[in-house]
């Protein structure tokens, strides 16, 4: 890592951690904050990892996110592709999508608690909804933005509609599709935490709520750091994938 990257990337974080440690050690924060030092949070992280509490709560959250994210994104991609590709699908789904898209994902929670009940399916359903609409919308936008001459020229070259879809339309819509995936990959984690806090007895969100009731600020901060790290990792993964798949020609 060169000097300028270190200064712009790592140094601010080190300064923040140093300040945090100082504020806690010197008792500069109000006592009602129960503000733990950074080293105390790190110690708690390892302790939770060692006694299995972290794994017991992290992996259920991860699995829920992966299932909900994959299913929601896949369905959003399929419906978005159909709507962008075929006018009839756009006419059929368009009004419904327009009507449901503005509803925040967590707004569905009370309804889904009644319909699905409080079980494993509930957070997955919430993540599904949170991922479905943005991916669908971005896929439609990506496909609609493609110059129709690409399709026309492919037709004259003997390509069937299916070949055009798979070899021209979807590859050219990749940049928009990946933008959607990148957005929802972080959103899925934010939504799952909220859902688990409200209704589910396991997961990082649930651990957050338990920590709050025990006034364990160090555990709350561990959970928030995990949430932040997972959002970062997921978003970075899709930035990397987008770069790998489109940087050569963009």
């Amino acid at each position, binding site marked *: 890592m060169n000097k300028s990257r270190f200064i712009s990337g790592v140094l601010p974080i080190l300064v923040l951690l140093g300040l945090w440690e100082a504020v806690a050690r010197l008792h500069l924060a109000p006592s009602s904050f129960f503000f733990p030092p950074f080293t105390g949070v790190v110690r708690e992280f390892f302790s939770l990892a060692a006694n299995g509490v972290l794994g017991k709560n992290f992996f259920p959250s991860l699995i829920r996110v992966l299932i909900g994210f994959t299913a929601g994104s896949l369905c959003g991609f399929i419906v978005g592709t159909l709507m962008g590709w075929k006018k009839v699908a756009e006419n059929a789904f368009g009004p419904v999508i327009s009507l449901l898209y503005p509803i925040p994902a967590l707004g569905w929670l009370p309804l889904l608690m009644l319909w699905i009940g409080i079980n494993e399916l509930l957070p997955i359903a919430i993540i599904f909804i949170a991922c479905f609409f943005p991916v669908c919308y971005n896929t439609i936008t990506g496909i609609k933005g493609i110059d129709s001459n690409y399709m026309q020229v492919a037709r004259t070259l003997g390509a069937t509609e299916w070949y055009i879809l798979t070899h021209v339309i979807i590859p050219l819509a990749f940049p928009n599709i990946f933008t959607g995936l990148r957005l929802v990959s972080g959103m899925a984690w934010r939504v799952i935490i909220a859902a688990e806090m409200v209704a589910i007895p396991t997961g990082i969100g649930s651990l957050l709520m338990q920590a709050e009731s025990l006034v364990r600020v160090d555990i709350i901060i561990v959970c928030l750091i995990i949430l932040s790290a997972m959002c970062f990792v997921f978003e970075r993964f899709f930035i990397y994938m987008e770069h790998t798949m489109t940087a*050569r020609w963009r």
Partner: protein
Amino acid sequence: MPGIELRGVSNFILHNIDLKIHDGEFLVVLGPNGAGKTTLLNVIAGLIPYEGNVLFNGAQIDELPPYRRNIGYVFQNLALFPHLSVQENVAFGLNAQKRNGEDSEARINSLLHTWGLGNIAHRYVGTLSGGERQKVAIARALATQPQALLLDEPFTSLDRGTSIYLQREIKAIQQKLGITTVYVTHNQREAEEMADRIAVMHDGAIEQLSRPEDVFFSPRSKRVAEFIGSPNIFPCDTHRRLTRGLAEIRSGDLVIVVPDDGETVRKVAILPRDVYLSKNPIPGPHINRYIGRIDRLTPSMGHTLIRLRVTGHTILAEQPTEVAQRMGLAVGDRVHVALMLKWIKVLSKP
């Protein structure tokens, strides 16, 4: 039997088009913007709806979708696939038709070689120059061995040098392959240089379909004459060969040196924009240089039409109005006139 035939084709732009394009012919469709030239190509390619019939080699193809018409189409904006390399672009049609055998590979390599694309085969099209992009588009259109090639103003965005080079290349390859070609342009010189025949279009109809020299010397309607630019036409009284490639003709008192192709000259013509004017003597040998007097100045749409009297003849010249004003041209002025040899058109005796 014509290679391509249109019978009574009409749609939202075209009006009852009847057109027979001979097998292996290079037809240029010429006309102003909005004349319906691109629409005509799209009808042949089956990309837009129409009434009437399109026939390839005598067989109706109206029911065939574009992907089964076996047409090579070079779009005006080329529409090269940005996510594919040069080689993948050229191979697109063959892959789409699942013709991926050794023959196909050899054909792609041959096309890349023919068009000088071998050394950039793995580059993405976004990194290519304008000329290279045109070559990729043409190679891609030819890869599937289409029975007809449609080109929609493919060289509009290129500089003149590259454009002329590619025009010659495409004409040579068209003759070598004997492929029926329809080439759309609004550039009259491009049309004259490339066409076996020219179809002049206006308002969705074909105004004239004939050999390039006939369009130039015998425009069939006022619209065609206006589009061509009302050339100065000089009937030939006498004709004398000077050297290989040059001849001298007399039209009244006017002596004009013209390109000579060995045949007897009937008429010569030059467009007003190719008549050079100067207030000072024009340097160079005294060939096609005259002294004239300005008879009338008619400004119109950014250009000024200048009517000259030269040794008993009326010659029309055209200059951008800004240039004419800068030269201080006025009625009654004495000016030096040169007819640019390169642009003199010759109508030979049949």
